[in-house]
């Protein structure tokens, strides 16, 4: 039985592999056809149109890279804010702060004391 089960498993894996290969080949073919169509449409128009297509692609790429940089800047800002918050928290929770805070609170209650 073990042998049969193993055979069945092997067959199922082989079938899966064949399906993957078919899917992959179909995808590669569709991509090749799309590239060919795109190349033909560029050939059919003049140089300016081809340059236009190239520039639009560059613009798209630049927009995407810019967006990525903006994301990274946002992440860096988050990190900076977290660090600042951690520092502030450390200071505010420190003994020095607590003692100082208690003293100045007492000073405020004195007549003519600081606000």
């Amino acid at each position: 039985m073990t042998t049969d089960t193993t055979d069945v498993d092997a067959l199922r894996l082989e079938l899966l592999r064949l399906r993957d290969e078919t899917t992959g080949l179909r995808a590669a073919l569709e991509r090749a056809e799309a590239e060919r169509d795109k190349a033909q449409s560029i050939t059919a128009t003049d140089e300016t149109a081809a340059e236009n297509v190239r520039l639009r692609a560059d613009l798209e790429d630049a927009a995407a890279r810019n967006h990525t940089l903006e994301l990274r800047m946002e992440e860096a800002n988050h990190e900076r804010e977290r660090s600042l918050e951690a520092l502030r928290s450390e200071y505010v929770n420190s003994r020095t702060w607590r003692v100082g805070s208690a003293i100045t609170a007492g000073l405020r209650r004195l007549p003519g004391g600081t606000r």
Partner: protein
Amino acid sequence: MRDGDAMEPVFSVVVPLYNTPQDLLTEMIGSVQGQTFSDWELVLVDDASPDGTTAVRAQAFVEADPRIRLIPLEVNRGIAEATNVGLGLARGTFIALLDHDDLLAETALEEVHTAIADGVDVDYVYTDEDKIGEDGVHYDTFLKPDWSPERLLGQMYTSHLSVFRRSLLDTMRPFDTKYNGSQDHELVLRITERARSIVHVPRPLYHWRAVEGSTALSGSEKSYAWDAGVAAVKDTLVRRGIDGKAMRGPAAGIYYVKRAPIAPRRVSIVIVCTGSERGVELEPVFRDLQKTSYGRRSAILVVGSTAQLAEAASTLGRRWARVRPVVVDEDASDIARRNIGILTADTEIVLAVDGRAHLGDPRVLAELLMPLNESDVALAGGRLLDHRGKTILHAGYRYAWDLSRHPYRGAPKESLGRIGALISNREVSAVCTAFAAVRRASFIEVGGFNGSLDGAAADLDLGAKLRGAGGRIVTVSRAEVSLADLGAADAEITDVERALLVERWGPPGRDPFTA
């Protein structure tokens, strides 16, 4: 392009006016008049502006340009109804919506026209947008994903610029005043159910002016809109026969759709012992699983070598009785083990769980599985956090070779993400299958994981195959688990793997869902 009537312009740009300041009116109209594509009409609807001057100023433009029409309403009806009046009188083949204080990019109509001409039966087009400050500086560009129905349920992401085929709009109820504040979201939810083809133009062609009182500044400026949006999403669920509830999400303008949980009997949980793992390390994940209904009632398969399974059985004790062990050769690759595990399962849905995952909240499994209630969702991935559960390791792949394939990596788990990308479910190119649920029939149909790939390459290939077969892949914001690291998903994609991916799917460029 036209419907046959030579007098119909291609586009009707419909703009409801209300107390529109002179300078903003002039700039808005100027942005339409300056379009590189000239076959348009501009339909201005003055919603009985109490200032007494909006209609007068608009009339001056009408008299100077025959393409501009003004419809003055005698009684104020609100933005939804006012727009509906404009829609009813528009003559264009396509209708573009523009707010009275916003601007169109110079090539907006031309690029939308090109997208329509290049497509087939295009009924709805939306573009990217940005904001423009009072100083005229552009910022906050929103590079939107391609058509993402799951994201649209959670957020009105298509927003501006939206262009609809008029003949389709004519068959539907237009803007519904019941949803004032989110009337556009509600309309788009309805129209996209009927649209034959939906196209995204990935260029910021709409400039949203940030002024006091506008949602461009802050969603909370119009909190009533949020509740209207909840109602819109709720009614959408009812209309589509989706068993679920809609509620406010974690931020203004974000909605949480809680679908009915998938029955445990429809799910198998597959845990794979990879080549280097010892079976004994499964104890923590089993402990977490037992707290969930799926852990108690779904089939659990553990895939490993004889030695790994024996060790796991010994460690897990009585828990092992629930397990269906799947024996593989000791030298079987990790990818082969994963394929075997999913093949061996005999349920509709397979939930793959990395043996090192810390599940934490017992609700994460139910959250992860919920999108698979939609028959066209092929794969749902969870969010992977670092071992402390504080920062994001993975929240959906971008199709890329380097580690930018994990966008938002390193962000705190509380991050909103770009325009709320991290706080609503959204479509992605692929997900890390360390914690993911797949529709087994879809997985088999496309041939599972490719045996010559591993880690991220295998995940990217699987994602592309599933999408190529018409499936959607969703990352689920509330399904968070912690992992020490991503393992193979962090390894470099080798040259051989790249060659195969390029042959099938092309080199990395613009990812359709993640900028």
